[in-house]
């Protein structure tokens, strides 16, 4: 995490009353309105907000890359005292290469796949600086690769982009941006495409960069936790406007805008709990740019809305007198009494799990791969096995939520496929309500069997067929599972399902493209529950949604689960969310289960070293949380050629010796039902300090604030 009390240099970038619009078929659409920002040398400013709030547009405007249909319609961007819109194309080109650099979400898209990385890096000084020799350029490239902590820079230099992992690619992209020693770095969701443990490394690197290179950074993210770890100041954006601005700790601890408050209510912070303190989604939807309300854009969704005040003129930013630099765009900034505001949702009874529904024992899934190369022919090794799942054993009970946690490539999707019958298990058993379905492909299952185990998918934009209406897709499922066959009854059931997921009934006639991401995901949930399933596999159902929408969808999913006493198998990489909603957690790594137990057991010592690293990698948007930093080195091994012994031994920070490389780790039973697969003795694992610790902040000097604010905290 960045140290919070640093001195910064002169102002390098200033946005003054910036207004940006896009011009489309539908007319002018204001994307960013009245945006002010000051960035000092060495400072890192975060832009945070949900999709469509204009954060990327700001970055593109700073780069002067708005494209044909976008333009700055008001205000100015001043870079080192010069108005950027008055610069010529040539000046801008010089600036972009030398002083301002941008890093995008997809590292692979920023690297040329047909050029060696060394050459691509060397091009930066060779093209942008006069009199640089090849040797000098190569030396500088190697140096900068080392400074982004890539192991073996020389090997990276002679590799092509596809030969290194995604995290390493992103490091190379950052290195490339740093080569020209820019004074301004724009990072647009630089870690969103990466796994959490890889992300942690990149975040650490970014946090250090400002200090070592004294670079000013604009960090764009939808993740409040990442902003806390990387930024000094933060701008919270909503529908094209900054609604709150200030130092990260001030905004996070003493937020004043109802939207900021709402955002924090939507994210599963360590204190949240699905029964006692559920998440509170922000009601309503983000207004479309051409349908923004008068006055405060957040008005229709705000609990403190006052007709006649909030819906009149445009709301200016108000500075908080007690916190210089902290300002908020709310007319009621000084009068809302947060102490009486109860942001907690409706708490519910804890539900006792019922009888066992799913029982998986020693399930293996190997894929055969035929190698037709001559070398394989000579060696006689024509068939290789991809060990996607190895010795999977766990149980799930009625109305229980079991989370399966792991990063990409850990075999969670294969597990889901085998359960759904799209693949059959190589070995072992999957007993679902008394029947072994491990080797029963979906074609051989009865409609009731299929309907009783269904899935909710990850990508809202892909989960519904764009060619058919919502109603016809739901009706198909109902008929297919034999729930109803009479057209009127099918229609009624479709309506019931839409009611169940809290969508208006006329959505049945709509097509998926007329729905927002959250609405599509609701239809996806309705589809999964059409056959009255007793088990639902949810594969990252909210990871592609904005936080406020995700909170609503998560809440809905849990409501329905409670109502129907459904068993939920929740596949996720988001440990905060898992801690919030799961009863049991299964941690997977490279096709193996490394740890499983109840949520409390898994989130407290003893940990498997991988669980420990995962926990420490998750960014948490709470200033009172202190975490251990564990950065995993190395690359995820391939499942075609997994390491011998413990699958985690190549990256394990706590490897104890040769035994890890040669022998499969034993399954230690830490307590009844809590299993850890590790060679390290239990006593030693138990001795580890917890990764996430809530620090009591009372010993710190609290910032000056009005008396009633204290009561709210």
């Amino acid at each position, binding site marked *: 995490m960045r140290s919070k009390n640093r001195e910064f240099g002169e102002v390098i970038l200033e946005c003054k009353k910036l207004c940006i619009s*896009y011009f*489309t*078929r*539908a007319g002018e*659409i204001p994307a960013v309105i009245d945006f002010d920002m000051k960035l000092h040398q060495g400072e890192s400013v975060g832009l945070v907000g949900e999709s*469509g709030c204009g954060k990327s547009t700001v970055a593109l405007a700073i780069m002067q890359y708005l494209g044909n249909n976008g333009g700055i319609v008001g205000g100015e961007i001043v870079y080192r005292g010069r108005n950027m819109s008055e610069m010529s194309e040539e000046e801008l080109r010089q600036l972009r290469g030398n002083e301002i650099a941008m890093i995008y979400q997809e590292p692979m898209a920023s690297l040329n796949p047909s050029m060696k990385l060394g050459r691509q890096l060397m091009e930066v000084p060779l093209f942008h600086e006069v009199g640089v020799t090849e040797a000098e350029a190569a030396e500088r490239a190697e140096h900068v690769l080392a400074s982004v902590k890539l192991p073996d820079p020389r090997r990276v230099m002679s590799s092509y982009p596809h030969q290194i992992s995604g995290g390493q690619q992103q490091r190379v992209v950052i290195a490339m941006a740093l080569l020209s020693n820019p004074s301004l770095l724009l990072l647009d969701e630089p870690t969103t495409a990466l796994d959490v443990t890889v992300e942690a490394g990149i975040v650490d690197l970014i946090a250090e960069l400002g200090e070592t290179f004294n670079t000013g950074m604009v960090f764009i993210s939808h993740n409040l936790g990442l902003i806390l770890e990387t930024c000094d100041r933060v701008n919270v954006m909503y529908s094209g406007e900054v609604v709150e601005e200030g130092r990260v700790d001030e905004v996070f601890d003493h937020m004043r805008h109802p939207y900021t408050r709402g955002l924090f209510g939507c994210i599963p912070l360590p204190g949240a709990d699905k029964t006692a303190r559920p998440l509170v989604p922000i009601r309503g939807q983000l207004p*479309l*740019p*051409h*349908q923004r309300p008068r006055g405060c854009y957040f008005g229709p969704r705000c609990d403190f809305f006052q007709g006649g005040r909030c819906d009149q003129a445009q709301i200016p930013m108000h500075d908080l007198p007690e916190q210089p630099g902290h300002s908020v765009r709310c007319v009621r900034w000084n009068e809302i009494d947060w102490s009486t505001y109860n942001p907690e949702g409706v708490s519910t009874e804890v539900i006792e799990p019922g009888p066992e529904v799913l029982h998986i024992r020693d399930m293996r899934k190997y894929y055969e791969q035929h190698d037709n190369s001559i070398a394989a022919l000579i060696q006689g090794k024509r068939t290789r096995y991809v060990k996607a799942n190895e010795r999977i054993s766990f149980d799930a009970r009625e109305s229980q939520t079991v989370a399966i946690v792991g990063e990409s490539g850990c075999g969670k999707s294969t597990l889901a496929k085998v359960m*759904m*019958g*799209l693949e059959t298990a190589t070995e072992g058993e999957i007993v679902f309500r008394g029947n072994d379905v491990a080797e029963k492909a*979906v*074609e051989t*299952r009865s*409609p009731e069997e*299929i*309907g009783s185990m*269904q*899935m909710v*998918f*990850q*990508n809202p934009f*892909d*989960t*519904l*067929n*764009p*060619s*058919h209406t919502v109603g016809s897709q739901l009706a198909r*499922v109902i008929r*297919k*599972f034999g729930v109803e066959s009479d057209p009127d009854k099918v229609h009624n059931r479709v309506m019931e399902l839409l009611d169940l997921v809290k969508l208006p009934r*006329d959505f049945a*006639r*709509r097509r998926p*493209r*007329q*729905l*927002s991401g959250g609405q599509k995901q609701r239809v*996806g949930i309705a*589809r999964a529950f059409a056959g009255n399933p007793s088990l639902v596999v949810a594969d990252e159902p909210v990871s592609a949604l904005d936080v406020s929408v995700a909170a609503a969808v998560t809440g809905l999913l849990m409501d329905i689960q409670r109502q129907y006493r459904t068993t939920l198998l929740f596949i996720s990489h988001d440990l905060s969310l898992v801690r919030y909603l799961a009863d049991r957690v299964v941690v997977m790594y490279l096709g193996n289960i490394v740890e499983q137990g109840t949520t409390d057991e898994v989130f407290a010592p003893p940990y498997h070293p991988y669980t420990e690293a995962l926990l420490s990698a998750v960014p948490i948007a709470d200033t009172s949380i202190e975490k251990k930093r564990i950065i995993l080195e190395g690359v995820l091994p391939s499942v075609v050629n997994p390491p011998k012994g413990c699958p985690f031994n190549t990256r394990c920070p706590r490897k104890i010796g040769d035994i890890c490389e040669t022998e499969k780790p034993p399954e230690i039973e830490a307590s009844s039902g809590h299993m850890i697969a590790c060679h390290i003795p239990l006593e030693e694992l138990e001795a580890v300090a917890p990764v996430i610790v809530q620090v009591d902040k009372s010993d710190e000097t609290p910032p000056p604030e009005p008396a009633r604010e204290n009561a709210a905290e």
Partner: protein
Amino acid sequence: MTDIALQKTEARESGIVRFFKGVALLRESRVGIAGAILVLFWVLMAVLADVFLALGLLFPPNSIFVPLMEPLSEFIAEPGQSFDGLGGPVEEVCSLITSGANEGKYYCGTFWLGTDMLGRDLWSRLVFGAQRVLFYAPIATIAAYAVGIPMGLAAGYKRGKTDDILSYIGNVILAFPPMVLFVVIISVLGSSGVNVILAVTLASAPGVMRIVRGITMDLRNREYVFAAETRGEPLWRILLIEILPNARGPIIVDAMLRMGYVIITIGALGFLGLGLPPPDPDWGGMITEFRAMIIAFPYMTVVPCIALSSLVLGFNLLADGLREVSLRD
């Protein structure tokens, strides 16, 4: 910005309305409008050809009148003459000229594009030629798609052996120069409309298969296909209901391009004498018929060439326009 389209509640529209709304989007592409005008011109001509004939605006295409008339020359008949295609004696169907050099003769119409060596009206033959080509080309294209789409869907969805076999067959066919293939097929089967359709289908289906296979390979990884699989849908349903409707955009664009190509092919077959059997007018046949006289009477050859090119160009521009419109937003 995608959210804008999203809020337009067009929930209650039927498929037909949406189709025409889609077509109406074409007006945003100039290229597309140009293509549509060219294609519509020939389609109207072909559809209304028989009406025009009945109204006396066209001559019967195979009737022999006056040979070697230049374009725009008037059809002047002597009293007492009679022509097969006029529907009666000159005195009854034509109008008497009452003044000028041709006084006493009869005016029977204008050869807008002149007549050929045999004395047939070129414009009439062109219009009836359009009728034929616009009958056979769509049928041949649809036939090629009817064969290519199932092959492509199966190959792209099943992969593995199915894909290997189907792609192998397709590649073998594609490896032949298409013209050689046509010549062989038509020489063996004989020249008739059905055989032209057969030949075109055989030669085009592998191309169609490749396109559909590519799209299917992408679409099969979508989650809605996965969802259909997990509820145990039969194969045909996954292919035809889940995948195919989502491939329609690229398929329609490709169909327009392919239609142009089929028209050229039919023309080329006619040019080689392998096309639709004479004496009915066929553009390819018209081009080749009086090719030897191109220096003396260029219009006989050039006019059908222009007709053929304009129709093909029309389809190509239409395809470009559709693509342009479909890529917007």
